[in-house]
């Protein structure tokens, strides 16, 4: 079983940019992203999220998002998919960075989640 990271943002460029920060410290971790609506506007797209989820070569996904509506779409994508998705209410960039660093270092999920709890700053829709 392998863990990958999924980044979901309302803005295409943020979604594209975060993996670049992560890949530096986690070259061996599968990272995919979904940003913006299908029409390249600001928002999120269930379709894009689903594609990014399925395209991620890992068998289990740690997912990070920016705003509440991204979370709702992420949850729906998770429900429609057979891949287990762990959704974190952490700061998007900082949470994903920590998860990537620790996954690369071979840390196990419970310990990673303990670290992520310290970065939890959202949780409502």
């Amino acid at each position, binding site marked *: 079983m392998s863990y990958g990271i999924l980044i979901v943002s309302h803005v295409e460029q943020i979604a594209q940019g975060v993996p670049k920060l992560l890949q530096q410290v986690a070259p061996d971790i599968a990272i995919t992203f979904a940003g913006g*609506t*299908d*029409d390249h*506007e*600001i*928002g*999120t*797209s*269930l*379709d894009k999220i689903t594609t990014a989820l399925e395209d991620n070569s890992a068998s289990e996904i740690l997912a990070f998002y920016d*705003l*509440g*509506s991204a979370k*709702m*779409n992420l*949850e*729906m994508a998770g429900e429609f998919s057979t891949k287990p998705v762990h959704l974190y209410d952490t700061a998007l960039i900082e949470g994903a960075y920590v998860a990537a660093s620790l996954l690369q270092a071979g840390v196990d999920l419970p310990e990673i989640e303990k670290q992520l709890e310290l970065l939890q700053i959202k949780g*409502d*829709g």
Partner: protein
Amino acid sequence: MELTVETLTTWMNDFEAKIAAKKAYLSDLDTPIGDGDHGNNMARGMRAVTEALATKNPADLTTGLKLVAMSLISKVGGAAGPLYGTAFLEMAKKSNTTAELSELLEAAVLGIKQRGGAELGDKTMVDVWEVVVPEHAAGQLTSEKIAQAVEATKELVAKRGRASYLGERSVGHLDPGAVSSGYLFEALLETEGELK
């Protein structure tokens, strides 16, 4: 009332017309306490809904409700997409066992609340759904009651969605999702009225 795929279509066409007419107003409501796109989001979503219903011509209620749900989910783009989408998806699921509208709507409310985590009083669309649906079930829903539920969001402090970042500053503004939900139920009243 038992919902049919035909009534659903009438209802959705009516809702789409209201949304289209109030598109700018809904986005204006979303400007001081959000990102100013609720009207555009809903108009895009409902256009997709009515087009899908017209072109795909769903054979039964469940298929119709699913079509509505998927169109909203994939086209709205903002928070309203997964929320309205979940409402219709839950109605679709429920329609496998009953076509009774009040039961479908109850499933929808639960779905919205679960999806967004909002409760009554959080200044969201839930403030309309949760008040209106029992009135509808009791056969006592009126335009006035809908308007009251919508209007009641004005004095609330937002606890969910973008408006929640403004805290107290959200007071004095109607919640855009509550207003669009009001249109949905207005359209429903009209659809039911036509059937009488």
